[in-house]
């Protein structure tokens, strides 16, 4: 995979930050869905350019938390203060009838660009992300890893400074996933963004994030925060990561 080494092209001017201070600021956020109390008081601040991983048991409310950050729902109580976010949903949510380039270019179309113009703008990015020659392929003709790249390209092309990734690599096999981690770290090095990464994979969190927040069972609260030293992508076999992994897993088991 050549794309690991090539640096993706700049998508446009660096995103403007609308929120002073933190990119994401959650203050005592509670959320109910019907009778279910999903979030039980989340406090979280994410600095600009920081990558924060949210790990937690399945069903604890991680996707719900991202929906609040992306403004798809308002919290039942508490304050959600974020800059505009681009969501990469749990399934890649590519339009099945549109080809890879049209899918990546969708945010440009929504901002009013014509089809030709949008495709022209998206094409270099898609090529930089290692999808050259697959512009005209429909999603069902692409492998899982390639579909995720198209979805990441689409999220970058929204031009928003905050990316919310919801278990983006959970459907990939282990080898593809490791490749994709390295690839994403490269993309983020070239295209600095603030990232909220939801995952149930502690390994993934340790390799990609600057900080890991461990969530409890429903109603979810942040039980542990672990800062990860070193630059991305990290070697999962490094000594300090081994210790951090043990700490994260213990926190998960205890909640």
């Amino acid at each position, binding site marked *: 995979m050549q794309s690991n080494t090539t640096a993706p092209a700049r998508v446009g001017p660096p995103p403007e930050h609308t929120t002073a201070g933190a990119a994401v600021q959650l203050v005592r956020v509670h959320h109910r869905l019907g009778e279910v109390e999903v979030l039980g008081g989340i406090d979280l601040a994410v600095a600009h350019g920081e990558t924060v991983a949210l790990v937690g048991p399945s069903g604890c409310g991680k996707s719900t938390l991202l929906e609040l950050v992306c403004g798809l729902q308002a919290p039942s109580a508490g304050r959600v203060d974020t800059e505009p976010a681009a969501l990469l949903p749990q399934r890649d949510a590519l339009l099945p009838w549109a080809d890879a380039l049209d899918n990546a270019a*969708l945010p440009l179309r929504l901002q009013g660009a014509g089809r030709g113009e949008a495709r022209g703008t998206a094409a270099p990015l898609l090529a930089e992300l290692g999808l050259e020659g697959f512009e005209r392929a*429909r999603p069902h003709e692409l492998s899982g890893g390639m579909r995720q790249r198209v979805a990441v390209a689409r999220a970058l092309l929204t031009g928003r400074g905050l990316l919310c990734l919801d278990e983006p690599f959970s459907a990939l096999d282990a080898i593809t996933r490791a490749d994709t981690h390295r690839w994403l770290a490269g993309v983020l090095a070239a295209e600095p963004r603030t990232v909220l990464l939801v995952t149930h994979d502690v390994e993934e969190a340790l390799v990609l994030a600057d900080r890991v927040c461990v969530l409890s069972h429903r109603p979810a609260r942040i039980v542990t925060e672990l800062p990860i030293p070193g630059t991305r992508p990290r070697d999962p076999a490094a000594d300090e990561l081994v210790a951090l992994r043990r700490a994260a897993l213990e926190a998960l088991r205890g909640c």
Partner: protein
Amino acid sequence: MLISVAIVLALLGAWELYVRLGSVDALLLPAPSAVAETLVEDRGMLWSNLTVTAAEIGFGILLALAVGLGLAIALHLSRSARTAVYPLLVASQAVPIVVVAPLLILWFGYDLGPKVAIIALLAFFPVVVVTLDALAATDAELLRLLRSMDATRWQRLRFVELPAAVPAAVSGAKVAVAVAVIGAVFAEYSGSDAGLGHLILQSIPQLETARAWAAVVVLAAFAVLLVSILAAAERRLSYGTRLPHSPKGPS
């Protein structure tokens, strides 16, 4: 394909034998060979009547599609329109067209217009129902994504719901074609001076049964042609959502 051809040939053979062995008066039931002869002999008459009926069916289906798709979109966008209009739609299908058609023809005359209206009245219903269901069944995840990108209602329709409903609309059109052919013959029975239905209706009292059968064959062939065009469009438009993704190239 081979098997269906064999079945048709066997049935035609049996029919031919049945007539040849004198079990039935050839005036009441002509042999397939006699029908085939008439197809050739009367080709000019059949063709000119086909063009009349084809125009009725063509315009009728176009009107049915325009009204059907327009209604489906309007009902999809507005809940109050849905509650107000949907029962009326269903009721429109309970109107006995058999009774109303001759009245319409009496009122508007033998022209193309009333026939197109009758065909469209019969054919728009499958288009509305199938398209409306497909619009409502759009993948919620895709809509959520569009909302996260601040898409307007119109953009959600334009970029997600409408393309997602296209295959269903084509299936609806396929059903509409079958209904439209019956509707055309029926409209011509109700009063006309040309068309294959008119030809059938005239040929029977004149004991030109072979000609009536030839007209039926032409009409059936025309219907099959329309349906296969739509089936081809349907295949082209299917984008394999139900297929598991097939890995190709590097991942």
